[in-house]
């Protein structure tokens, strides 16, 4: 039930019933975030396997990025763009929050998006062939765990909003469940390296949250999405050297 709520919020997968995004079910849904990430990663891995039979790697990687944007409805990319627009503008914290609400894209958002997608594309192309599926599953699962950590551990910046609803229902219990599930997925798929990615994600989330809190009264739904994109991208970049290190050691 709460897994369905998490799926409905984080993906555009066709689901049976429109569940209300409200109440204690939301708190429990947070615990499932890493599993939703792993599921998205598995869908990408399956598409990767199928498309690689017909198309060269560089093209498959563009299609995977497009598929992920469609599967998530661009939810986190939206947040990343709004966050770039808000955080890089030289305004007061309150004006920055107002920029987050503007549905149009500013210059910083376009620059951020272009840079992010180019980096994601390059990182996908550099993943070791033997571990592509594992890297996709772990990077997406761990990125969604990082959102749960940020939601539970850091103050929220608005009186209302979609993020507020999650924040109000989020307790240490949700983080505990998500961490156990995230460790199970990351460790199960990539072993010791998987657990290292979880620690890295925590570090990235902590640094990013400190940075945001210096510029905003608190975190918002947009910054959660931005964090998801950041962690996902940096893990895709860092996983190949980590896996090589493990192979050598």
């Amino acid at each position, binding site marked *: 039930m709460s897994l369905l709520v998490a799926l409905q919020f984080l993906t555009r997968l066709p689901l049976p019933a429109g569940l209300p995004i409200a109440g204690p079910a939301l708190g429990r849904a947070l615990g499932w975030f890493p599993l939703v990430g792993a599921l998205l990663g598995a869908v990408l891995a399956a598409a990767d396997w199928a498309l690689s039979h017909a*198309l*060269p790697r560089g093209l498959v990687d563009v299609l995977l990025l497009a598929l992920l944007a469609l599967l998530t409805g661009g939810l986190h990319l939206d947040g990343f763009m709004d966050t770039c627009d808000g955080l890089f503008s030289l305004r007061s914290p309150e004006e920055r929050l107002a920029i987050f609400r503007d549905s149009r894209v500013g210059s910083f958002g*376009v620059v951020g998006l272009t840079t992010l997608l180019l980096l994601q594309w390059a990182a996908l192309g550099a993943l070791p062939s033997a571990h592509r599926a594992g890297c996709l599953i772990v990077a997406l699962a761990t990125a969604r765990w990082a959102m749960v950590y940020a939601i539970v551990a850091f103050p929220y910046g608005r009186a209302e909003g979609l993020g507020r609803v999650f924040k109000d229902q989020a307790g240490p219990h949700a983080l505990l469940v998500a961490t156990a599930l995230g460790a199970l997925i990351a460790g199960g798929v990539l072993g010791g390296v998987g657990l290292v990615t979880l620690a890295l994600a925590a570090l990235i989330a902590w640094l990013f949250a400190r940075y945001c809190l210096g510029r905003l009264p608190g975190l918002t739904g947009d910054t959660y999405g931005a964090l998801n994109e950041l962690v996902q991208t940096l893990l895709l970049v860092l996983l190949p050297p980590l896996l090589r290190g493990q192979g050598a050691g």
Partner: protein
Amino acid sequence: MALPFFPAVGLLLGALLAAGEWALRPLLAPTVVSALLVAALVVLTGALHLDGLVDTCDALCLNAAPAERLALMHDSRARDPGAIAACLLLLGKFAAILLLPETVRTSALLVAPLVGRWANVAAYWGYPYARRTPGASLALKQGATRARMLAATAFTCGGLLLVLGPAGGLVLLGAAALTHLVACLSRQRLGGLTGDVYGAITELVEAATLVLVPLAVGAYES
């Protein structure tokens, strides 16, 4: 009436691309040539169709009634879905051109804009128009007769047959399928097509053709 000549304009664009590629190849790295060709297409068309893609994605993704979606298309500023689509399309074209196998490089560059403009004509002819307000697109739509569609199709088929042989038929089939898909989505969400949607179709089919040509000929190494 300009519509039947769209594919001819496409072929001219394709010839410019192929000539540019041929001239720059000995001088520059393949990645640079590919990026320059993507830029050349944007500049040569004045980003006309790319703008349509951005507006179309913004409008189709808007959670509102069809009338509000149509109104949003007139907003010249981009939103998140349009920005994401434009970035991915440009990246996709870059990757597609960079990874064109040697054997089909010239022919794919030559026919991609041609097939893209044929899809534009086909969409004008085959699907209802969503607006009633006068404008360039409505004028083109009213002139999209069966005879003009046939003329454009005959020209496109001739070009494809000349450049690719029978495999050109597969490319045209793929282009028609993609056009139909976008047109159906647009009818469902907007009640019809608009000038922006025709542009979006042109961009998507042009990019897809760069991949369909090597696929149809079986040129990608497995």
